[in-house]
């Protein structure tokens, strides 16, 4: 046996004792992960180093499924646990272990590489320095948490799938405080990337400074009719909230109601929505999903028309389409569920954002969100609490400390008349959401 490998996964799959003649199948899953977390605040520095290994088993029988998970020392009890729960679950079409995939056949799972503490600390120091420089004495970093790690995963099924894959992730959570003569405000924000070096620190620092200083330096703006320009940091969280309409066949009714059973467009003709785990700049970089299915580039909205769905293996059977590789496992202790990887508005029809700003005759440029956006898909409403600038003839005339942008979601999506070429991502749900600058002329609620 090689160092770091053993036959626990094989034992787990064999222990399931599937009666294939009775339509039973099983999927065994193993995850190894290692991560470090560095917390720096006013009281010092904390370093956490986490090394973990976990196993999970899913049993399938006649459309039923049950899940059980544990650490290696207790893996032998998982088949009994799953079998006990199996009898009580309801049936659903398409629920069964997935078959072989191209590139499968791998057999051992090596531990992931250890994260580099030194470069993580340098990254935090660099962010602090960028933030203080951008804040010009009015901003301080109250707390910064940098987490970076890697994991390796293996999925094997009784239907012949056996695939090994790996991925990495880095997350920065910063609490920033701004102080001026008008008062003080603190805010927490989150950024993620596949690797530490891919975090856009300078851009994050400027965004954090805007987030805490704009509410102190500007004046509130009553909602008024005008052009609307949404910065990618404002637009991307809204895009992320659209995702659930495209989750397998569960979102069918919702999507049908939003498009009158396909008779209406979902959005404007230059709006295309894509999920892609390999898009350049996307924080999620992975080759396979939590069921071992290779990720695909999936177009969900093509030129304004709803065109695709995200699926796991079971939903793909019900939709009668190939699986898109969107079964996401948040942790080894949770069964996979449909989720996004990098969900973004395609910027290929985009123009430089400065051109969009120049085109803005009279209206509001939303630079930062002040709270989580409210996006109600069933109710077809949205509401953004934002700060930014009032723009006239392409020039900022006044800082806006807060205003509300709200209205019908479908009308907003169909009114987008231009997009920028400045695609940026923010963490969202199980992955990330991305958008370029969005331009909506003559919006009645801004």
């Amino acid at each position, binding site marked *: 046996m090689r160092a770091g490998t053993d036959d626990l996964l094989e034992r787990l799959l064999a222990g399931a004792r599937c009666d294939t003649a009775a339509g039973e199948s099983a999927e065994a899953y193993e995850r190894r992960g290692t991560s470090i977390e560095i917390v720096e605040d006013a009281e010092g*520095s904390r370093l956490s*180093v986490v090394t973990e290994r*976990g196993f999970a088993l899913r049993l399938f029988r006649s459309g039923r499924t049950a899940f059980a998970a544990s650490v290696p020392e207790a893996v032998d009890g998982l088949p009994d646990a799953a079998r006990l729960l199996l009898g009580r679950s*309801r049936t659903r079409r398409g629920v069964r272990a997935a078959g072989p995939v191209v590139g499968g056949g791998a057999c051992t799972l090596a531990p992931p590489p250890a994260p580099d503490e030194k470069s993580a600390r340098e990254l935090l120091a660099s962010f602090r320095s960028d933030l203080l420089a951008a804040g010009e004495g009015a901003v301080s970093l109250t*707390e910064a948490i940098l987490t970076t790690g890697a994991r390796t995963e293996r999925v094997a099924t009784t239907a012949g799938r056996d695939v090994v894959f790996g991925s990495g992730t880095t997350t920065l959570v910063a609490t920033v405080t701004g102080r001026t003569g008008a008062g003080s405000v603190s805010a927490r924000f989150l950024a993620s990337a596949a690797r530490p070096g891919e975090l856009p620190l300078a851009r994050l620092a400027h965004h954090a400074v805007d987030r805490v200083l704009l509410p102190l330096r500007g004046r509130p703006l009553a909602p008024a009719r005008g052009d609307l320009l949404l910065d990618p940091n404002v637009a991307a969280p809204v895009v992320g909230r659209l995702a659930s309409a495209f989750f397998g066949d569960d979102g069918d009714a919702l999507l049908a109601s939003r498009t009158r059973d396909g008779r209406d467009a979902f959005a404007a003709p230059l709006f295309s929505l894509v999920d892609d785990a390999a898009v350049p700049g996307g924080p999620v970089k992975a080759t396979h999903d939590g069921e071992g299915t290779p990720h695909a580039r999936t177009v969900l909205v093509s030129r304004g028309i709803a065109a695709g769905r995200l699926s796991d293996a079971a939903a793909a059977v019900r939709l009668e389409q190939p699986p898109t590789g969107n079964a996401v496992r948040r942790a080894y202790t949770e069964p996979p569920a449909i989720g996004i990887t990098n969900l973004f508005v395609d910027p290929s029809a985009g123009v430089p954002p400065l051109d969009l700003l120049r085109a803005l005759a009279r209206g509001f440029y939303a630079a930062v969100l002040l709270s989580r956006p409210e996006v109600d898909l069933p109710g077809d409403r949205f509401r953004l609490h934002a700060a930014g600038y009032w723009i006239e003839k392409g020039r900022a005339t006044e800082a806006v400390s807060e205003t509300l942008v709200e209205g019908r979601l479908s009308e907003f999506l169909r009114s987008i008349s231009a997009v920028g070429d400045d695609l940026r991502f923010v963490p969202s749900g199980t992955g990330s959401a991305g958008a370029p600058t969005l331009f909506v002329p003559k919006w009645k609620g801004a």
Partner: protein
Amino acid sequence: MSDVVETFRQDAEDAVRIVSGLLRRGEGGEAFRERRRRVSWTATEAGLLAPAFAEERGTAVRLRRGRDSLLIARDGDGPEALREAVREASRRGGGSPFLKSRGLERARAETEVPRGDEQERAAQLGAALHRALPDPRGISLMLRVASVTVSRAVVTARELVTCGTVRRLEAAGLLRRAHTARPFAFQTSAPWAPALDALARALADAARPVPAHRAAEGPVDVVFSPGAASVFWHEAVGHPLEAGWGERGSVLTRVPRAAVAPPGVFVTADPTRGDLPGHYLADDEGTPARPVALLTDGCVDGLVTDRRAAGGASNGHARCGDFRRPPRPRLSNLVVSPGRASREELLEACGNGLYVREISAGHADPESGRFTLFVESADLVRRGALGAPLGPFVLTSDVLTALRHLHAESGDVTHPASGLGLCVKGGEGVAVGGASPAILIRGLTAVRGRS
């Protein structure tokens, strides 16, 4: 799980020796063991889907040296996991741990398989959901319902301290009707049968059609139900009185001993209340749990602390979401003393305003004192009587103004809050609870919320 804590004790003597051997002069630290068992179901309007069982076991070794700390965490909660974590902590911390074992080795641990009555429990849960939604036509439900049991112990340089075993039923998800969707969150520490009854009642309430009426925007006087008041106290008083807000502190720690609320208001962080979800015997650093007065007779009194903030004077509020994260000062159960007013008397005192039944979420900025409460269910109050039910909206204000405008008299009974579930701070959730009487606050600002 009842004997998990006893399992933790099996190698207590060895574990204490290992931890004490790790620590050098000037260092503090401890080891932490956790076992978490979760049996969950996806509840839909058509029944229960996808049952899942998960058991996590973890060990962490934590060292504190001056203002810095190191945590090494790994899977497994047995002697070998502890030794490996100590070796790694020693390697990174530059020490030479004492790892000699006296030969006591725990038997290879098995998964505690769900009991045979798990099927019966699933049937009972299904029946409770049916009671909540006897006619689910027009409703789409997607809830994750889980029975969670967490056992924890802390190994200090002197002893193994049991934090206790906490059980709770939790549910979270989304409830949709034709043109509306609302979040639903619930948790209780009650035993299984009463817990299911409480879940059914909460779900039935949540499934009522969302009223078309909206709260008018602007200043408004608000009577909070006991459950909703618990969320207010948690956000407005609890969070600002957690240690660790840096040199400037929070809006409340900057005014120690100041009278910020009317006399007669007593707010206590009380992890010893066994009937509430934030209960524990010892905190996650091994300090015995004890009640801490946050507001005494309306005055800022104490704050919840851990060893990093208060050293040996920690008042037992170091908490971590799980073994992977270092503990930090966090809330437990927030208990507010009752007054003498009935609900009708509070409504009468309110005159024209709002009666808030349920708050689904909230957040506060301890720096500026601004807080936001997301109201899910409320009624108009007209001339001291309940009026039309209202759709969701948002309430905002700042902590000091809201406490200053708190009506001197509060409700005569306290109720545990069922909607106060996981408190998430820095992405890390811990179970919290609350018990409060109904309260009246004047001059909050209502903002239209989700339609």
